[in-house]
């Protein structure tokens, strides 16, 4: 393991310490070491937005706390859900008197910890409503959408919900917008190499040299096909086929596209991948109106990329264009 770490069991905490030192203008500590909040508070009467998840996906999840995005985040161990207590503390840090929207991904641990935290918050009189992202179209058939994992499409959900709260939306409106954003989003990943949890010391899955795994999950969950590595054009075609056949995209649609590296793929290659994604969309008469290309939602040092496509209506288009500033995402506005 050639890694820049100290104690393998302290990696998540050590990374949080570094983030707080590097971005004091964006993120602030709370009394709970695994909970961070936006340095600039959203303001009284606004709906608080909370997310959380395992570490190892940086800049997710903490990188999407900031102006126009989330207000607080609960950080777990590497690839493990934050505790119920962390989520509960994050809810408190994001309470501005109008309720809290907890927007997170569909994993067993997160579901349980959020469920317990929502109950704890209810005892304090704090209303928390949730939206569970399930945008990974390769993780289960469409008929079993509730089993699908949440992946990089969560960023669209946080972005839309954050903007809605900024505009003064109430909790019901913020939840509805977050749900719409994730319902309109499909994502697919391709893995080209495995990743290693530092405390485990060795990868728990393998991808043979020269092979790629289509539909791989953000923790190395098996995909739908293992095949020889294709060209960037070929990979874009495979991913877009999956996304476009799953969602009801039609000629004339406007979309937002997010291409994220999985950690070890050069950003340059993400630009190559994006060029083909863009071409495939335009060939079908679909117009990308928002484009995000970079390392947004990673899986430690896995090689590969994910593509997320969100079908837009006027509201989502406006909300995605709303200014935002965090360490993972900055939007200047139109």
């Amino acid at each position: 393991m050639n890694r820049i770490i100290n104690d393998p069991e302290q990696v998540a905490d050590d990374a949080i310490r570094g983030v707080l030192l590097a971005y004091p203008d964006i993120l602030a500590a709370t009394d709970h070491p695994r909970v961070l909040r936006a340095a600039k508070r959203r303001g009284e009467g606004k709906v608080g937005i909370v997310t959380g998840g395992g570490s190892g996906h940086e800049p997710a999840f903490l990188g999407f706390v900031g102006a126009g995005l989330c207000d607080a985040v609960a950080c777990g161990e590497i690839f493990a859900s934050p505790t119920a207590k962390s989520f509960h503390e994050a809810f408190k840090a994001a309470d501005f008197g109008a309720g809290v929207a907890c927007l997170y991904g569909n994993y067993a641990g997160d579901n349980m910890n959020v469920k317990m935290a929502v109950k704890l918050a209810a005892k304090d009189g704090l209303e928390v409503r949730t939206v569970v992202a399930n945008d990974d179209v390769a993780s289960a058939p469409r008929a079993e959408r509730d089993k699908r994992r949440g992946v990089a499409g969560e960023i669209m959900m946080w972005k839309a919900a954050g903007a809605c709260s900024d505009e003064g939306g109430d909790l019901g409106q913020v939840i509805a917008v977050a749900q719409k954003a994730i319902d309109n989003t499909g994502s697919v990943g391709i893995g080209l190499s495995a990743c290693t949890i530092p405390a485990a010391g060795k990868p728990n899955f393998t991808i043979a040299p020269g092979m790629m795994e289509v539909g791989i999950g953000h923790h190395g969950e098996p995909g739908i096909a293992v095949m020889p590595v294709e060209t960037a054009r070929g990979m874009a075609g495979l991913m877009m086929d999956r996304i476009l056949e799953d969602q009801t995209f039609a000629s004339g649609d406007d979309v937002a596209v997010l291409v994220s590296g999985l950690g070890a793929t050069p950003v340059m290659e993400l630009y190559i991948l994006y060029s083909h994604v863009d071409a495939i969309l335009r060939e079908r008469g679909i117009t990308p109106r928002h484009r995000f290309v970079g390392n947004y939602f990673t899986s430690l040092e896995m090689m590969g990329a994910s593509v997320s496509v969100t079908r837009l209506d006027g509201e989502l288009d406006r909300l995605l264009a709303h200014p935002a500033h965090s360490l993972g995402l900055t939007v200047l506005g139109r």
Partner: protein
Amino acid sequence: MSAGTGDSVSLAAAGPILFDLVAVIVREQGRLSEIDGQTGDGDHGVNMGKGFRMAGERLRAQGEFTLPQGLATLGDTLLSDIGGSMGPLYGTFFTDMAEALDDTDRIDAPHFAAMLKAGLAAVQGLGDAKPGDKTLVDVLVPARDAFDAAQREGKSFADSLAVMKAAAEAGLEATRDLVAKVGRASRLGERSRGTLDAGAASCTMILSALADGLVQRLHA
């Protein structure tokens, strides 16, 4: 009254059993991670070891504690410091088992049955696992059923614990032939068949250590 009367143990005398639970999980954490690595992400032992070690430190600092006080400390530690799926599942498992001993100073067979029932209810209330889904429920359900059946047959507390321990081990072994239906291993579908479930393995270790500790103290 003595620590053990043959059919019950004082909760104060049973407190140190917590150190046996901590010891077995810390000792076996490598094996748990190895089992988990075959179907999950290989961190079950790491997270369990970390949580139980932390609980062990807190218990040592606590000094004197009864069985339910110790279980509550262990449960609280897992709930507040260990996330993932196992933090909340085992966290509520132990805290609810502790609550089942609220109205007594001694643990006898009916109290043990109530404790096991509360633990199982906690796990099933939080997760969606049913018997056959390849989870710790596949150890807890046969363990509870075997203990209850042994009691109905008029077996002693110690003999019922031995029967429960054997049922837990058989339940664990049976997870090998199951296909995971919930949790991260469920993404593997058929490929999860042929391996043990890591949560079921740790659950068996916990139930066995609990049974051994009580049996030792029943005649102390």
